[in-house]
């Protein structure tokens, strides 16, 4: 199990983690949509050889077809790979670090999707690691690039820098007081997008949000990161102000303690119930109301998603079996 996400990090009362992704394609090869499984596999092998020949980042090569479906899905739940990448193993592989903080997806939407994750708010650090790996890869391969429109990608929405920088935010009070709806539309006017960090729909399960840059062409990496940074800090300030106000109310305190009791004593807990109550327990933890370390909350949130429970059990459990395992782990962690 990877450990990057339970670390502390800057602004960790609100910012869970930071992620940088680069999209790159090897010059002279058609993009993945024009490659069959055989050519993809060959290209993946070439990238593997080049990287492992001089493996200063300690990356292991894994072909996606060697993973069970729930193992791949579990990696997607932990945000190590994209859900899209997990959904189809054909001609796909990854180069991954032992801590899972560096992952290079091969033949996802582009030949190379490089991802670096860090706990807390660490955009500069994550960017500098990603940039170093990018330079390393570029020393082995020529990248598809056009001086007018930048790094060339299969989907024009990633053209230019090919960079997506994002932060995962816990915004329970802005969600409770309804301010989030207005903030979402404001943020989208500033070239950023915000969406739920868990689950498929637009609803933010557990009040967890993913804030990322939307535009990649005509804005440098540095400017995009500065923009994301400043908006993240503004959201953090607003969330803290809302917390300070709401935490004074007996109703909020009651909700926090009820959530704690429910998690502590239940015998069956669904993912939704876990996330909903964990959000309140996290609020209780950072505000000093509950004797629960933040680290424990972060770990429960990421390690008790459905496929991750299956992966730990080494088999596909029924929903009821998972609810039982989930409740058991929560009880033990909070005991």
């Amino acid at each position: 199990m990877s450990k990057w996400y339970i670390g502390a990090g800057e602004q960790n009362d609100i910012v869970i983690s930071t992620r940088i992704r680069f999209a790159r394609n090897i010059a002279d090869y058609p993009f993945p949509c024009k490659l069959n499984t055989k050519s993809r596999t060959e290209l993946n092998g070439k990238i593997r050889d080049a990287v492992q020949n001089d493996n200063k980042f300690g990356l292991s090569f894994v072909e996606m077809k060697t993973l069970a479906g729930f193992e791949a899905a579990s990696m997607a739940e932990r945000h190590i790979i994209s859900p899209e990448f997990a959904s189809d193993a054909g001609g796909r592989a990854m180069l991954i670090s032992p801590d899972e903080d560096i992952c290079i997806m091969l033949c996802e939407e582009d030949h190379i999707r490089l991802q670096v994750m860090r706990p807390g708010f660490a955009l500069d650090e994550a960017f500098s690691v990603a940039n170093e790996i990018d330079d390393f890869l570029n020393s082995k391969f020529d990248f598809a690039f056009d001086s007018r429109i930048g790094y060339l990608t299969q989907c024009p929405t990633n053209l230019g820098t090919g960079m997506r920088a994002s932060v995962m935010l816990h915004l329970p009070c802005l969600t409770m007081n309804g301010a989030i709806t207005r903030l979402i539309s404001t943020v989208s006017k500033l070239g950023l997008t915000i969406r739920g960090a868990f689950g498929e729909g637009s609803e933010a399960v557990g009040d967890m949000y993913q804030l990322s840059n939307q535009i990649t062409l005509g804005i440098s990496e540095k400017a995009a990161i500065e923009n994301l940074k400043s908006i993240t800090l503004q959201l953090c300030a607003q969330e803290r102000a809302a917390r300070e106000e709401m935490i004074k109310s007996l109703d909020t305190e009651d909700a926090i303690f009820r959530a704690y009791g429910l998690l502590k004593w239940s015998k069956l807990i669904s993912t939704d119930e876990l996330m909903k109550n964990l959000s309140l327990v996290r609020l209780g933890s950072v505000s000093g109301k509950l004797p629960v370390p933040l680290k424990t909350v972060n770990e429960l949130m990421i390690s008790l998603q459905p496929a991750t429970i299956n992966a730990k059990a080494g088999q596909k459990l029924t929903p009821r079996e998972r609810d039982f395992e989930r409740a058991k782990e929560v009880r033990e962690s909070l005991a």
Partner: protein
Amino acid sequence: MLCQNCGKYEATTHVKRIVNGEAAEAHLCSDCAKMLGYEDVFGGFGNIFGSFLGSFLGDTGVERLSARTLQCEKCGSTFNDIVESGKIGCAKCYETFYEKLLPSLQRIHGKTRHEGKIPNKIAVNGDSKKMQIEKLEEELKAAVDAQNYETAATLRDRIKELKEGGKNE
């Protein structure tokens, strides 16, 4: 929530799509949904980028006809293939359909000119090093004119590197 396409009207149509390999939702007003071909939400989850292109092409039937004949010599994609799939086939496609793609790039990003990192090793659509240096010098001039000194400094370094690399070869 306001429509993500026009930003004017309340979004009533919610379309799931994959952006950057992740599921995302597009929120559109009924007019924009109609224009982009999402009239019936259950009728098909098209690709919003392709629809952007489609709506541009839809403006002129003549364009659509001529677009059919032009083909990428490397991967064989026609512009209609790109519109339909929402995917570019290869780097050469960008060169082949550059002019046709510009309005969509403008619409998606609000800009059409790259700013930021430049690869260390450049092999751009078979350009020679000399062409590359010329292109970069043009960029440098533009960056200086725009008082974009950070970009200018990066470009200057790249040009220097390319020129020095040239001597060694």
